[in-house]
């Protein structure tokens, strides 16, 4: 085919609407200055003398918050994919239980789920001597396994719903093309369906990850001391209101910034054309 012969231009079409490298546009300078001003004001006008006493606790809480968030998001998402798929395209045997699971998880407060697991289920175990004597007891006795379990299930429940919509939203033709070439069902899922579903769900998924960050403080109610619990502790100890919360907000902001940044990167892996 002879036609496209003379094209001297390198193919690097601007495939994305927002690739402006205008980091230093005037309005950004203004915004940055406002931000700096706020930070400076809170440093000078608020009370930070307590900070050195809590370094250790803050570091520990921060670490707990981060790992719980990361672990539960990853595990929860792995559960959410089958949950979403079962609802979107599965036969009734799997669709109905998946739907019931998502409804119950989304329908009841996380605090309640956490308590049911920890104080309900968890307090059954010690009644059986063989559990107390087993290898597992040191873990079952701890609180964090229950925290991780509850948060994972919660994330899976919400994300299962999101993934259901995302799976159902992939254009039929895209799947038909895959079927027409004889792809196995699992291959279709892995190569075509899941990537496209995830890609369109990414903005929502990022939001749900941030929601999960804000759900982690509940683990404090079962003695897992996260960053939020440290901030509460400072407030109780000192009766100061805003300073520990602002510090907490600053940490959350950084974590959220990282989450948003990572998801943005993922989103931009595949350029999408905007109408």
């Amino acid at each position, binding site marked *: 085919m002879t036609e496209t012969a003379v094209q001297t231009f390198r193919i690097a079409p601007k495939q994305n609407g927002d690739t402006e490298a205008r980091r230093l546009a005037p309005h950004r300078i203004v915004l940055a200055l406002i931000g700096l001003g706020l930070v400076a004001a809170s440093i000078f006008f608020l009370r930070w003398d*307590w900070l050195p006493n809590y370094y250790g606790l803050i570091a520990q809480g921060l670490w707990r918050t981060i790992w719980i968030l990361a672990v539960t998001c990853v595990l929860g998402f792995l559960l959410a994919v089958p949950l979403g798929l079962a609802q979107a395209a599965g036969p009734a045997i799997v669709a109905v239980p998946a739907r019931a699971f998502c409804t119950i998880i989304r329908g009841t407060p996380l605090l309640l789920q956490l308590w049911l697991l920890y*104080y309900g289920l*968890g*307090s059954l175990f*010690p009644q059986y001597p063989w559990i*107390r004597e087993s290898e597992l007891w040191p873990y079952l*006795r701890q*609180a964090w396994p229950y925290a991780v379990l509850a948060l994972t299930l919660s994330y899976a429940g919400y994300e299962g719903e999101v993934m259901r919509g995302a799976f159902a939203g992939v254009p039929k033709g895209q799947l038909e093309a895959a079927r027409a070439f004889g792809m196995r069902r699992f291959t279709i899922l892995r190569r075509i369906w899941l990537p496209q579903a995830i890609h369109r769900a990414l903005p929502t998924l990022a939001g749900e990850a941030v929601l999960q960050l804000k759900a982690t403080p509940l683990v*404090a*109610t*079962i*003695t897992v*001391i996260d960053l939020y*619990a440290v901030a*509460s*502790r400072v*407030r*109780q*100890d*000192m*009766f*100061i*209101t*805003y300073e520990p919360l602002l510090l907490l907000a600053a940490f959350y902001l950084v974590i959220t910034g990282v989450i948003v940044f990572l998801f943005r990167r993922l989103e931009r892996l595949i350029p999408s054309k905007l109408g």
Partner: protein
Amino acid sequence: ETIKVGIAAEPYPPFASPDASGKWNGWEVEIAMAICEQAKLDCVITPVAWDGIIPALTTKKIDIITASMSITDERKKTIDFSDKYYNTPTVILGSKDVKMDATPEGMKGKVLGVQVSTIHQVYAKKHFADTAAEIKEYQTQDEANQDLAAGRIDATQADSLALETFAATDAGKCCEIKGTVADDIEVLGPGVGVGMRKGEDQLREKINAAIKDIRANGKYDEISKKYFTFDIYGG
């Protein structure tokens, strides 16, 4: 001028709890009203969620707080306190199956639960941290009690009142009071006081006087007898 008396919206019986019709009662509520009456202040009880109670005070949405706040030096940097109006001894409650007493050696190898940001937590950290296997922090004492019953912790430290009440319940049958901890005024502080904004010295004087007066005229004991069998004012 009315004085808005802030209490925590989360119930804390027998000190303060609402009934289903929304009326608050309990020892602390009655004491607060008695103080007001004595000081000739026109008071209204205003429940505020614990999280908002300090900002509510500083922005004048409430004027004084009677919510079982222990007086500590740290807290005094932020708000003012009246003299103490009660002080309960600190005890340790432990499982009947486990031998222990309320000393550092007696706690050796035990898992101890305390409520976060209480004088008990500070005390346990200071005196038991070296010997106890672990000190677990709970958001409320109720949770610590439940875990004690479930066997996840061996003992809990709190004021005698809360623990005796719990030990008397069905769930508390597992456990018994193991003893009173040695006093440490630096940590345990002088007791519970009325909180108020900094610099309102006139009001504080009035309230201090009123506390003294109701102790003197028998009102305090009259109210206390309805709730407790022992001397809640403490030594």
